[in-house]
């Protein structure tokens, strides 16, 4: 896992795609991110990152079925791969590991 490095935006989008599970496509992802963090992403940026993640094999994609929305155009739906899941786990593990090591003492302002 050492080889994979995730950028901040990449991680965010990967997480969003994972959390949306079967409904992860461009617009849904930026909506989700907006809802959760208040950050407004441009759709083209999301597309670029999604394609990059797919190249890194952290996501796979397939074309969804045609619906009446979007003028009948299909969506590209993204799902987390095993590698993608591992990458998230890894980065979460690193974070919580580091987080837990912060001595409580340091922030013990009250005493």
């Amino acid at each position, binding site marked *: 896992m050492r080889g994979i490095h995730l950028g901040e935006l990449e991680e965010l989008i990967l997480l969003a795609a994972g959390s949306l599970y079967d409904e992860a496509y461009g617009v849904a992802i930026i909506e989700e991110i907006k809802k959760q963090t208040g950050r407004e992403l441009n759709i083209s940026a999301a*597309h670029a990152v999604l394609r990059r993640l797919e190249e890194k094999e952290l996501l796979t994609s397939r074309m969804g079925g045609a619906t009446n929305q979007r003028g009948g155009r*299909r969506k590209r739906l993204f799902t987390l791969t095993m590698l993608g899941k591992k990458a998230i786990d890894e980065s979460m593990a690193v974070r919580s590991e580091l987080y837990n090591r912060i001595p409580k003492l340091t922030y013990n302002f009250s005493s």
Partner: protein
Amino acid sequence: MSNSRPPKWADRFLRWYCNPKYLEEIQGDVYELFDMRLEEKGKAMANRKFIWDVFRFFRWSNIKRSSSKHQKMNQFGLFQNYLKLGVRNINRNPVTSSINIFGLAIAIGIAITVYFFVDIQFNMNRFHSKRDRIYQIFNHVEQEGDNSLWSDTPLLLGPRIAADLSSVEATARLEYANAIVRFEEEVFDEWIAFTDPVYLEIFDFPILYGNKQALYKKDQIAISHDMAVKYFDLEDPLGKELSMVFSNGEKRRFEVGAVMDKFLYNDNLRHHFYIPIDNFYDLKFQDHYNWSYFTDATFVLLNEGQDIETLQRSYEDWISLQHGSNPEWLIKDYESISLNEVALRSYNIHGAIGWDLHPTGRNSFIIMACLLMGMACFNFMNIAVTGAAKRLKEIGLRKVMGGAKRQIIDQFLVENVLQCFLALIVGTFLAYFLFVPGFDSIVPIDLQFRAFSPLNMVVFFILLLLLVGLLSGTYPAFYISRFDPVTIFKGNQKFGAGNAFSKMLLGFQLFLAFLAIVASIVLTDQLYHFTTRDWGYNPSGTLFVKITGDQQYEKLRNALLDHPNVEGIGGSTAQIGNSLPMKSIDYFDRKIAVRAFGASEDYFNVLMLRLKKGRFLTDQPIDQETAVVVNQKFVDQMEWKEPINKTFTLDSVRRTVVGVVGDFHYDQFFSPIDPVIIHGVDGRAINYLSVKTQLEELSTVDSQLKKAWIDITPNDPYQRFFQEDVFDDFFENNTANIKISIFISCVALILACLGLYGLLSFNIQKKLKEFGIRKVLGATPRAIIKVAGKQYSWIVLLAFALGAPLGFFVVDTITKTLFPDPNEVSVVPFVFSFFIIVVTFTITVLGQVRKAIRVNPASILRSE
């Protein structure tokens, strides 16, 4: 929903640029966003955001490309394969390929050489950083209705401009003079330039030692690299003292204040000695200088951002100033020419100070290079088309196996461009090692394998490759790719020489060849005539020296007069062969430009000028003062029936014509013969002493003269010239032109032969079976030759019939602009060129024809 569509053009733009692979998802997303925004924020906002999104998607990764990644890899592999095939094909047909490559290489080499030749001329003087602000001032003088442009301008003009005009930063003049320069034991007669001290600052001549301010000290001079070597062997030249004796006998000592570096290759203002102009005034060649005195050149440096028009407004003032000084020459108008253009215009400027070339000369080189290039390309096309005949089956197979037409075109294009590339390399080597140095040695210009702008040179090389490659490669590639596999495999593909287009190509190639050959042979003939032309006098056995002091002429004359081998001693103010000075005479109210010089009684016999009417001059005082002898041209121009005893005014003295001599060449033969006046002269005014002797006695007389010289004026250099050598520069030039023109005709001939050889060898190969059958049926060798040559002979004849007259016409036009009175053109060059062409062609085709005659029917016909 119809009112809630996003802007159409943005949608169309998206569809246009977007990679089809991603279009659906991207379009879907932007539409969905649009719909969402439509509800939340209204139509205008949604539209704006939609457009924004579309533009944000306009990224490299989303843009449609002609080929996907996968296809590109494939293409690359194919190209590699094409290259390999190309190399193999060259190896398989070494003869045809080397003919092809070599022919092209010669033409490319010449094109490169001509490129450098033209490049240097268009970039003369462009190394000066202030060149866009530097102008040289010229003036128009009208004489006999003939408006001519002169480099000589009033001496006082420069300071006047500097004082009057605030738009001018500085002005500098050049005033030439002769001086005898001495350093210890080294004494030479040198050509020096007086100039304003600011001259070295206006221009950017590279300086080796010292600095640009050197000339501000009156006793300091700047010398060229050559001179520093000549006088001091370049050892510590700064501060060394040179002494100079000027034409009026004054002597000055100067300290070397600056040494300039070697002349740059595109330097057109090459002077060896620069002396501060204050010395010129001090030397008092004249007591007083007014606006009637002309200096050799005046340069102006404008202030930054100023326009030359500020100068033009003052022309009127300067004209009236000049007219007020009552000169012989009346300036009609001034003209300021940018330094960038001076060199290009010098050819029709009188007294131009730099090297120049008539544009006709330059253009004829360009035309010749294009002609040869064209011939080489046609040659290439022909051989490429016919050469492909051996590969018909390969083409057929490729097509059957699914090769698209496009791919076959690509394949042959790659092969042809590869050959062109090799030709470019060989041609560059030819140019570098052969043509440029060769050309440099015969033109009076510092030609190097070097262009002013390396970028332009690279562009030129690439263009050359593309042009030649595409021009000569496209047609064969398209032609070959058109074949139908079925006809190929059936074996009845009509092809090659049967093809009218191919014949046309050969015809055109031969046409160009004949044009070039006849043109250069006629030109050679013209130039050769100069070497045999009558000079108008007999230079044989005559030598002359330049007189440097008072009384020197009489003393030398007396010292030599008793010498048994001396047949005559004459004196003159200017020497025939060293361009004669221009003067103006008054005849009633006409002013006529003439050449005039003075000569003593014996001078006529020494040079053996030819008397046509009247008598030569004598040394009687009356003759010395008022009598003149004129040349035939003068009589013709005046339209005198009886010239003897006619009078006119020269130098405000009334002169009487006592004799007429036949026209003689006093300057290189390119310039027309002007009217010439020879007036009587007093012994003190004589500048040249000429001695006539027997040819075999020249060296004894020479040493005798030298001994006398050293006795009389030991301090002056003994400068002796042989009259026979006076036109050496011209003849050298002429020989150079002859060489170039012979070279071009040889190249044209070689290219034509290569083309013919290539086509014929193919055609005979193809018809071997036919010849075999003919032989079986009893054909004689003569009949076979007839059949083999039938197709080509009429093309050759037609090409000659068209090319030869055109070539003649071209040369005729050129000679008429270059030479004032060209020689009569005879039929000889035509016959000669036809003869040469026939002989070389015969040799070229002989081997092939032998093959046709010697064909063994049994072995040829066995296979079917």
